[in-house]
């Protein structure tokens, strides 16, 4: 198992190199660069723009720029953001807490409710409960996130039950520990529900379909025939087999953990990575974009690895093949 993990990690290196080359080429091929906003500023002279081109290395060829960047990255220096003038990881760390708080709680919300609901729906196929849950889930899937977010904010403004967006209150520092936690939770509900309802429906439908398929399988009929209690048939046999594809889905979700959700973050004024990266893309803040792309690729690789390990853990057949 350990050898397998090490091999996967070594294989990830060429993948990351490829991703970085492609990303760098595509960003450089896009018209213009970070200095375009300076070029259109009436109070900045041409000499000054040329001096900054030299400073940022824009006067060199793309290949030279890439290798300069790569040699710095190998030494652990991911470069400075052109806009903020601070190392890119200082910026990303600053956003990490809010990003993870939102994505992890959304994940718990969506998976925690989606899987049980899916199981319930499958076991009560075509009942009134199943129909109601499916109906609500489809509403969740079909309302665009930004619109749901705006509706939520409007509701909050009218009722005062929830804050009108934001991450923490302005008096956060004066609160006790529990006050702080409560304040954070209070702000978290809106974006969590917005993002969660969109994912929940997919998870629920997936779980329902998988379980229904498995309930039709011969081994279930066999288990029932040999007189196994129905509870055990479902828990130990049907669900265990139905959960495999769901775990593969978790791998991809982990990759999306850091990506953030730009529109929802914007509407809720949530200080996550999504807004930071979108601004960086718009301004062609090269090194910040590169760092966030690399980070997402790493998360995707790790997410897949974790999903594979989890699969091996729940499925003895895979464990057998790996060893």
């Amino acid at each position, binding site marked *: 198992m350990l050898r397998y993990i090490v091999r996967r990690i070594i294989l990830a290196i060429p993948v990351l190199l490829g991703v970085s080359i492609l990303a760098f080429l595509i960003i450089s091929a896009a018209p*213009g660069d970070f200095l*375009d906003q300076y070029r259109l500023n009436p*109070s900045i002279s041409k000499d000054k723009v040329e*001096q900054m081109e030299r*400073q940022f290395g824009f006067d060199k060829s793309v290949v030279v720029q890439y290798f300069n960047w790569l040699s710095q990255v190998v030494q652990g220096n991911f470069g400075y953001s052109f806009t903020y*003038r601070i190392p890119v990881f200082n910026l990303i760390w*600053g956003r990490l807490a*809010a990003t993870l708080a939102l994505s992890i709680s959304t994940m718990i919300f969506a998976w925690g409710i989606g899987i049980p609901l899916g199981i319930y729906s499958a076991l009560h196929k075509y009942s009134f409960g199943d129909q109601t849950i499916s109906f609500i889930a489809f509403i969740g899937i079909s309302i665009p996130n930004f619109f749901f977010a705006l509706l939520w904010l409007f509701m909050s403004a009218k009722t005062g039950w929830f804050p009108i967006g*934001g991450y*923490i209150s302005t008096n956060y520092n004066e609160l006790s520990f529990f006050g702080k936690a409560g304040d954070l939770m209070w702000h978290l509900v809106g974006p969590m529900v917005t993002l969660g309802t969109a994912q929940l429906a997919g998870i629920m439908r997936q779980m329902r379909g998988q379980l229904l398929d498995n309930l039709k399988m011969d081994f279930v009929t066999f288990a029932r025939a040999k007189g196994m209690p129905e509870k055990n048939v479902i828990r130990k046999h049907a669900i265990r087999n139905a959960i495999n594809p769901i775990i593969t889905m978790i791998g991809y979700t982990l990759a999306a953990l850091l990506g953030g959700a730009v529109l929802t973050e914007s509407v809720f004024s949530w200080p996550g990575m999504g807004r930071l990266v979108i601004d960086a893309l718009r301004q062609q803040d090269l090194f910040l974009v590169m760092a966030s792309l690399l980070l997402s690729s790493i998360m995707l690789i790790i997410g897949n690895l974790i999903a594979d390990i989890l699969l091996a853990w729940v499925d003895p057949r895979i464990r057998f093949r790996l060893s």
Partner: protein
Amino acid sequence: MKKLLVVLAVLFVTVSMFAATDYVIRDYAGNPGGVLNVGTLGDPKTFNIVWAQETSSTDMLDWIGYHETTGCFIGSDQGGMQTVPLLATDWWFSEDGKTAYFKLREGVLWSDGEPLTMEDVLFTFNDVMFVNEMTANGNASYMDANDELPVVEVVDENTISFAWTVPNVWGWKAVGATDILPKHALAEAVANGTLAEKWTVDQFTDVVGCGPYVPEEFVPGVYVKFVKNPLFWMKDSNGYQLPYLDEIIYTIVGDQNAELLKFEAGELDEIGPTAENFPRLAEKAEEMGWNTVVGGVALGSNFITFNFNAPDPVKSEWFRNADFRKAWVYALDRASIIETIYNGLGAPLYGPVSPSSGFYNPEIEEYGYKYSITRARLSLKKGGFSWKEDGTCVDANGNPVEFELLTNAGNTAREAIGAIMASAGEKLGIKVNFTPIDFNTVVSKLLEPSYESVIIGLTGSVDPGSGWNVYRIDGGLHMWNYPPEYSEAVSPEEYVLPDWEKRVDEIFREQTAAVVEEDRYNLFAEYQDIFADEQPLVFTIAQNYLLVYDNTLMLANDDPNPAAGAFWQREGIYWK
């Protein structure tokens, strides 16, 4: 008790070591205390004034005294003219107009308690502002017509002089508006060449200023807080040491709708609403206890530029034809654009200077430009264009008139102008191929220059002199007629330099030497007249300054406008 005596003694000695503060006295009398809650749409990008580029950063620095609010020699009045003494108590020119003198205010302290002295002033200019590499904007605005920087000399203890080779009013204005920097806090970074990495977003509380507020806390993406500076050097008419408000809190909101909801819920005390939302807010204003302000039109404006050196020489010929350009001045239905995108809260513009500026020349209105397709057709006819039987407009050589019009996608105002221009073209038998494209592509096409026509805007300011980079023939943004020396895309055989362009170039060189303000006014009036007559850039529309705020909030500015906004003289803002 003994301890207290020692503390008092130390305090007394420290205070008497410095000269008594020469306070600025403002003529307001308000109530101290309270918190002001404001919203901002983006994160500040840096707290370093010489590298800050966007308003999301400079709006924050305003409170600490940077960005020409309190920490420079001369401040702006309500009309945006530099007349208010700040760090300079007095200023004057030598008789030949080449040397400008400033007298430094005594006893001003930095927010960390260090005195602000002539050392700081010398450091600011010699070590930072005059060194091209040190700042984002470079040193070009301090240079005179011979591209020379001034010689700085300390005349006596409190007087400093800047000597240029020729009279240089523009340079004097630039010096007067320069924020003085604290040498004790920045000297090391300047010596290492790392000034750009100083006072970045992770060093907010390190920022030292001489403004009414000091940095308290910054949580990225969440809020920025400022508290009262107890060492501030202004008093009100009752002798109360300003500022009045205890704390300023900027909440960072991600989106205009969220900001509006927060304002309506009373979480924010002030908002600059969009023209789209303004009428709805104005309707509820009385019931909700808000003041609404519709100020003058914005200083910057969107305009259409035609490339005199377009890749196709046939088209260049049209674009160089003033009658062709004027046809568009008539053909654009500005009133309906203003109605559609600004809810009627805007005004048409026919020249490069906004009516909100003190330099606006009202005489250009006598040209009588207005929306009229008939006049547009007359103008085209005068320019040698005619129409075929099927209504297609053709030039004197029989070429059908068709051209490309670009703008950056995502800018609603520019997209609306483009759409209305294309439909005006249809009425004139001219095919205008309007395409909104990526901003960076527009910029590279503009500067190369390889475009036919573009709708774009530039930031404006009260003083037209700031547009030197656009209007001088050798300017980097002289986009409609770049000389062959600027770009290989312009062929020297085809290049034409009309006389009026030479005159505008002359005006922008002469104005820097016009020490008497009236002479500058007259020079700029002439330039506006030339532009109204020739229309090298077809100016379009500008939006009114809009503001809604809590009516118990007393602003120091009784007439907020684009040149002096809601927070002009912010130290005088108080709660009723």
